[in-house]
């Protein structure tokens, strides 16, 4: 992510270059921040079992169940924190919940 | 600094001393003077004694303090005389103007310790007979101007007429009443036993 003047915003940025007032002109830039490594448990999407009821979609606190053409895709593991709420709401046991790294 | 005239007004909250000081400032301003008009700095409560001030000068005024040695004092409510030393600091070459129905002699007697001139004006009578109601400001303004000579009487009358015409455009009777009050006050303000 860069400032308007094209300077990369990272912990090396100098005071003259940093965004005035901390105002950020990149809506949704948190997408670049990966919270996937917070996971200790991991949901596993079983596409074959999924009936595309989408009940798992609104319960995800991390907006990590992408939907395209009214069908859910596999998890966005860049951001999924492994809370397991989706696992519990799935009426079809289409999401497994396993230890991360397995 | 050119000729500076300082005036202090005594009244009770709600009687219009602040307005009177502002009207005097207006009149003096309209006749080309530098002016200040300000109330005693603080809250104004109905009935409580209040003070207002005027500075009028031919040159720019920079002082921003209260007035402790006024040239003129105006007492809008004579019941204050018993409780407040209204002549405090008043210059002997100056004068005090009291709004009263009593004879001049009696009032003069009341201020026997004051070495300057004492003037009286019956603002109530003048106001009620010309305006039908008690609005002491116009008579008192006229009295102050007459006594203090801070502006030419002709100029004063002209500027007041302009301002009444502006303020009461739709009420010619009010303009007329005020002008009558003004002229009568100029004649009836009393400074000598006559």
């Amino acid at each position, binding site marked *: 992510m860069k400032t308007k003047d094209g300077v990369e915003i990272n912990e090396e940025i100098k005071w003259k270059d940093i965004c005035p007032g901390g105002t950020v002109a990149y809506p949704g830039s948190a997408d670049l921040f990966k919270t996937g490594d917070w996971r200790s448990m991991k949901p596993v999407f079983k596409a074959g079992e999924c009936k595309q009821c989408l009940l798992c979609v609104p319960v995800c606190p991390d907006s990590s169940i992408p939907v395209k053409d009214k069908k859910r895709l596999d998890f966005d593991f860049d951001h999924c924190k492994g809370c*397991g709420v989706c696992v519990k709401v799935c009426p079809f046991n289409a999401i497994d919940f396993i230890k991360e790294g397995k | 600094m050119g000729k500076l005239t300082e005036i202090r007004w005594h009244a009770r909250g709600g009687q219009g001393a602040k307005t009177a000081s502002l009207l005097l400032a207006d009149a003096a301003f309209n006749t080309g003077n530098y002016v200040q008009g300000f109330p005693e700095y603080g809250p104004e409560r109905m009935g409580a004694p209040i003070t207002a001030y005027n500075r009028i000068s031919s040159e720019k005024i920079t002082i921003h303090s209260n007035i402790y040695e006024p040239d003129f004092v105006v007492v809008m409510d004579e019941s204050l005389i018993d409780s407040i030393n209204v002549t405090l600091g008043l210059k002997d070459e100056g004068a005090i103007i009291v709004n009263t129905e009593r004879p001049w002699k009696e009032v003069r007697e009341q201020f026997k310790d004051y070495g300057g001139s004492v003037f009286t004006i019956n603002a109530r009578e003048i106001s009620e007979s010309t305006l039908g109601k008690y609005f002491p400001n116009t008579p008192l303004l006229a009295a102050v101007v007459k006594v203090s000579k801070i502006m030419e009487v002709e100029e004063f009358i002209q500027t007041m007429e302009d301002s009444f015409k502006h303020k009461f455009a739709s009420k010619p009777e009010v303009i007329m009443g005020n002008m009558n009050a003004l002229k009568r006050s100029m004649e009836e303000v009393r400074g000598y036993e006559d």
Partner: protein
Amino acid sequence: MAYNFKEAMNKPERLTGGHRMCAGCGAPLAARGVLRALKEEDQAVIANATGCLEVSTFTYPYTAWKDSFIHSAFENAAATISGTEAAYKVLKRKGKIKENYKFITFGGDGGTYDIGFQSLSGAMERGHDMVYVCYDNGAYMNTGIQRSSATPKYAETATSPIGTEVLGKQQFRKDLSQVMVAHEIPYVAQTTFIGNFKDLHEKAEKALYTEGPAFMNVLAPCPRGWRYETADLMEICKLAVETCYWPMFEVVNGEWKLSYRPKKKLPIDAFLKPQGRFRHLFNPGNEDMLQEIQADIDKKWNQLLKRCGEEIE
């Protein structure tokens, strides 16, 4: 507009992942749920009171919000957005802005029930065209779980601890939704996350597209503060509703309407038991505390039924 679940889910996300809320937090569900009710073509400005949601969704330089967003302080989110809304009105009038904007404020119970209550009350009274959404997790979670006026009676928090003499918070929670109804604003709703989010969605839609101020109180469980397993979020919400701890209702121009009536009201134990913050209530000798809570729930439920013109139990 009738709720089409799949179409709602198909809308582009207006709150991205990559924010730093706890795993399993309820607050982002409230934010996502409300934002989904926006028409896609409508712009929004979101204000946020200081709190978990705010510090986690906008940590420099990462914002999780796709819409314009402003945070100024803890107690003034409603006042801040009222300034933005007023600016919009005048700039629109002057022809400087073409787009349609909606103004939404999110605040936790701390920023809403307590420190931000004055600014909320003022903004509602002034009649700004805005929606204030409280995500109520029943304590000051951002500072480490201290009691708020939304904390339920006898709940354990860091400032209402379990001691030898005193067990948890000693007061019942403030009924903020009712206080907001007393402001006589066009729309007040209380809801939480149930099933396919129809209730939240429809209420958000009404709140957003009713002219004037609207208030939504959304129960948003906090697994850390309430001490339950993160995966149980939806179950906890369901129990809150089925026990009538958190009834769902709306008040449209002063008319109360119950949104959901449990077929059989569950005893309050069902909601309290899964939560560690109430564990002490289930120790022998504390039965009277449970009874007291139940009696309070029953009383308030009946009051609500009456207001909504429903048959009293």
